[in-house]
């Protein structure tokens, strides 16, 4: 990860001193390894606490809907696209925002590293160049960060912000990669196998809604889960209800999800919920040539139509 901490602090202090914005949304250093805490800096002194490294995975655009006043926000590629979605959906006005664009080299997946360490507890983790140096009670190990990125970062094709007032570093190279390798595997399964696969996938779900709350696209004042007239699904961990929840949530963010991975990162039991959203992203791209949050000139796909839209569902 490029050393952005300095440039974020500098920009934040400057914007706050000039009174260009009321506050700056960024991250400050976390209290446990591999974590940073989203932080709102209102004064130049507070801005000194801002950091940026490979543990800034949570999508900060989540803190924008219905915000009043002006705010600067640190946004990597996926975050900036979520901001575009918010602008399209009138959750915040462009004049309120000062976007500090961050060309991103991917976020570290602490779970992948934990797997490799096989139960040994991490006490310290430090990024150095392209490596992460991890140390515990009686061990030290170095990892190539690029091999331990979050799944969504590993297949990211929009690392550079699409919307920004100031770019805090040199743009990084985008990659050409098949984003849908995993979902294609599932597509080729038999219906029975698919059903079992997804039943098993959501089995650990405890219905805490961390995925929904971490998602910037989920900002409904009353979520469909809480609708009671009629009640669409139960709130227990009943398997049918749980599958219904994940299915519908993914559907509600279809064409609006920027694959920031916050949902998977937030899940306390490690469910790969992106397996729902990735397929919809693929279909939206295939059928309507649309990628969420790339431009402010096009409505999101379910809010628009074309006379020649394909009809693969007929027959």
């Amino acid at each position, binding site marked *: 990860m490029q050393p952005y901490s300095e440039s974020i602090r500098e920009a934040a202090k400057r914007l706050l001193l000039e009174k260009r914005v009321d506050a700056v949304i960024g991250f400050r250093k976390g209290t446990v390894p591999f974590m940073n805490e989203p932080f709102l800096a209102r004064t130049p002194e507070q801005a000194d606490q801002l950091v940026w490294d490979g543990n800034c995975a949570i999508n900060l655009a989540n803190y924008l809907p219905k915000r009043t006043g002006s705010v600067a926000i640190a946004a990597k590629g996926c975050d900036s696209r979520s901001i575009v979605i918010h602008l399209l959906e009138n959750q915040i006005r462009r004049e309120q925002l000062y976007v500090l664009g961050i060309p991103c080299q991917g976020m570290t997946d602490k779970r992948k590293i934990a797997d490799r360490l096989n139960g040994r507890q991490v006490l310290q983790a430090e990024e150095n160049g392209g490596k992460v140096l991890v140390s515990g009670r009686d061990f030290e190990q170095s990892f190539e960060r690029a091999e331990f990125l979050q799944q969504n970062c590993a297949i990211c094709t929009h690392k550079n912000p699409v919307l920004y007032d100031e770019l805090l570093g040199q743009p990084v190279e985008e990659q050409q990669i098949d984003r849908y390798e995993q979902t294609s595997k599932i597509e080729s399964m038999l219906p029975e196998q698919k*059903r079992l*696969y*997804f039943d098993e996938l959501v089995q650990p779900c405890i219905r805490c809604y961390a995925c929904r709350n971490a998602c910037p696209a989920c900002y409904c004042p009353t979520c469909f889960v809480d609708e009671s007239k009629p009640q669409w699904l139960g709130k*227990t961990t009943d398997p049918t209800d749980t599958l219904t929840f994940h299915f519908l949530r*993914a559907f509600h963010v279809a064409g609006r999800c920027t694959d920031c991975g916050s949902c998977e990162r937030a899940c306390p039991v490690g469910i790969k919920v992106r397996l729902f959203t990735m397929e919809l992203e693929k*279909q939206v791209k295939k059928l309507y040539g649309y990628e969420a949050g790339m431009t402010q000139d096009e409505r999101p796909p379910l809010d628009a139509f074309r006379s020649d*839209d394909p009809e693969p569902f007929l027959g």
Partner: protein
Amino acid sequence: MSDWEPKIIAFLCNWCSYGAADLAGVSRFQYPPNIRIIRVPCSGRINPKFILAALRHGVDGVWVSGCHPGDCHYIEGNLYARRKFALLKSQLDYTGIAEPGRLHFSWISSAEGTKFAEMARRVVESVVAAGPAQHFIKKQAEVA
């Protein structure tokens, strides 16, 4: 098992497809009696939650029908609906929630009574082939 009759919910738009069903009835066209109709003002009213709710109730098939694109009574309702249906069908298929043959869509205008009856026959046949719905049915909450 041999006396199982499929239960199929049909969401029909009021202006076209429901009219077609009416016409099929008045013209005495024969089609299997397994369709239970829910009338909606427009196919654009169809929310994926409706279809999921029907499946959760244990229906064996769901059929959604509306006006031909371009002829929607509300001009563009079915044009928005098209995109919803495409994504919904693909996702229900992908997650294994709706087996092949259970979910059907059609555009049938109010003059197309024969087409309605034909489609009804096709839908019932297809659902019969898929068998009684066994999964993704919510009865009692499966909890402690």
